[in-house]
């Protein structure tokens, strides 16, 4: 299995947020996580990616058989974990091209692979940007600076395409996208990640993304744990009934 989360407890600023979360993700699967605001969905993404300030107080996580929680954030990235941010961050003065090339080569170096040359990198970057309908001029602009909300989300997907991870945790990648962009991003997720050796954890509030990216499993995260698991039909049920009904 790709990722196994066992009895995960985590606090932020001493406040317990995750309270005994269990989840198993296998290669080749797409999982959706839904849940009310403040339930701890983003927290789960941050804990898995090692964000400082998010403290694990109990439990374990293995990633491809390795102890994920013992790794530094950049080591997790090099091991193939990618987090699509709910709120992508701006880095003034650093172009997307420079940022991604440095990041990718840092990962490659960590894995003992040869770095990509400028020309090799640009070829990959151009392909990925093209597939997601982002023009190269945008890739040369500083990371996310002055990007619209939707452009930032699309940029997260371009980054995912370039980095080519084996596990993608996508935190509300669909929010802020217009109808056409939603389709482009959905297609992108399928193209990049729907492969037998890859796994996606899709955090979302809405069924509309799941129309494009069909999940194998849907989970409800409420009050820091997984309270329900089902197939794609669970998302439709949630959309009809809301979380209140479910919790009862």
């Amino acid at each position, binding site marked *: 299995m790709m990722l196994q989360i066992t009895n995960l407890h985590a606090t932020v600023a001493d406040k317990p947020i995750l309270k005994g979360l269990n989840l198993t993700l296998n290669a080749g699967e797409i999982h959706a996580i839904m849940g009310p605001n403040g339930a701890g969905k983003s927290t789960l993404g941050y804990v898995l*990616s*090692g*964000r*400082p*300030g998010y403290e694990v107080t109990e439990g374990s996580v293995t990633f491809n058989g390795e102890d994920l929680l013992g790794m*530094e*954030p*950049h080591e*997790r*990235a*090099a091991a193939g974990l*990618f*987090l699509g*941010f709910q709120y*992508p*961050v*701006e*880095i*003034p*003065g*650093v*172009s997307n*091209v*420079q*940022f*991604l*090339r*440095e*990041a*990718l*080569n*840092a*990962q490659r170096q*960590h894995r003992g692979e040869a*770095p990509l*040359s*400028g*020309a090799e*990198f*640009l070829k990959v970057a151009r392909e990925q940007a093209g597939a997601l309908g982002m023009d*190269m*001029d945008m890739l*040369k602009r*500083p990371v996310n600076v002055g990007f619209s909300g939707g452009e930032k989300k699309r940029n997260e997907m371009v*980054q995912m395409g370039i*980095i080519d991870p084996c596990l993608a945790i996508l935190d509300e990648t669909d929010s802020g996208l217009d109808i056409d962009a939603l389709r482009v991003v959905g297609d992108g997720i399928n193209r990049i990640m729907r492969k037998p050796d890859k796994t996606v954890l899709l955090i979302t509030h809405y069924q509309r993304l799941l129309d494009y990216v069909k999940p194998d499993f849907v989970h409800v995260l409420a009050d820091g744990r997984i309270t329900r698991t089902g197939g794609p039909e669970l998302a439709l049920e949630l959309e009809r009934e809301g979380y209140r009904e479910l919790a009862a």
Partner: protein
Amino acid sequence: MTDDSAIKDQAAWDAADKVADYEHGWSSDIETDFAPKGLNEDTVRFISAKKNEPEWMLEWRLKAFAMWKTMTPPDWAKLNVPPIDYQDAYYYAAPKAKPKLNSLDEVDPEILRVYEKLGIPIAEQEVLAGVEGARKVAVDAVFDSVSVATTFRAELERAGVIFRSISEAIKEYPELVKKWLGKVVPMHDNYFATLNCAVFSDGTFVYIPEGVRCPMELSTYFRINAENTGQFERTLIVADKGSYVSYLEGCTAPMRDENQLHAAVVELVALDDAEIKYSTVQNWYPGDAEGKGGIYNFVTKRALCQGRNSKVSWTQVETGSAVTWKYPSCVLNGENSVGEFYSVAVTNNYQQADTGTKMIHNGKGSRSTVVSKGISAGHSNNTYRGLVRVAPNAEGVRNFTQCDSLLLGSLCGAHTVPYIEVRNPSAQIEHEATTSKISDDQLFYAMQRGLGQEEAVALIVNGFAKEVLQQLPMEFAVEAQKLLGISLEGSVG
């Protein structure tokens, strides 16, 4: 940006990958010829004699020395400098007599190894290897105090450009040197400049004749090598009417236990329609984590924009020295002359930097632009001190100043001290200042994409300094980007 420039960008990063790791904490074994320790009239005579100087030069030095003895060191800067014992230092050190060389191939391999460790830019190595189409850079290498090699002299001579060590120029072009030496920075200017006049060891002289665009970048690498050797470089660059030159100065120094004094003087003169671009990447030893050791850098750099439409642009990246006291300045005498100052100053641990610029507007319609990026980490203090002065009869002057400070951690300080003296009401002076902290969000975002913490800091800092870095010639920009990262190692987390 076009695709092409993106590829060039990438090529620069490729080159950066190849530059050797920072390892400047060594001292190479080259025989050194010292002047006796201490400073008196005999020291001055010794230096002058060692260099076979003409009588007028010796007299000039002695006059400066007599003046210096009557002066007291400045203490107005926001610096905390322990007293320097001027008698406890050597004022002259030269590698043992070597024949003059025409190319770096002929240079002592030990010295070449030193330069290799310094990571002299790839472009230059390509030029030296004779790579077709490589950009040309002439190197006048100053090893400790004496120029040991000058390359590309022939090509420069064809263009009429004079590029010499200052001691050669004193002998070969006495009239030119006499005409301009001390005209931009007068002998009595300040304590350290006066000291430099008395004991300057060597340095560079450049003259670009009327209408000539210098066919290559001129480049000098300074390096302080001998223990306890004060360094007193002297640089004089004269750009005659309608000429252009870009000059690169790079500095690194090996690790030492005792503080070493450096008091250089740089004089630039731009006549009508002439332009000088002067770039510095300065990476002297800043002292250890407790602030011990390191270089004291008290430099006087000044440009005289004498002619109409003349232009001087200073770009500096300062990452080294225990104490830096440095204000590259422009005296804008010419009508419509232009002064620019682009600076990145990094301080870490216990470093202190007090740097900035002076833009003295005497000419009508003269303009200046100042962009200063200060990055402070550790317990360091980073001060921008800038003066903009507009003379009463200088109509239509404009100045734009932008000072941005970036703080890493909460123990460091950033200070901005603008002095504005406007005596003509038509002047337009704008000053903008910002202070920010490196954000956890940015750091984590970069780390999630695969960068280690220090790489992430380096990347964000480089982004912050971009406006200045892009003013540098590419081979220098690459070096500077590496240096910013290196100098901030261990400053976060």
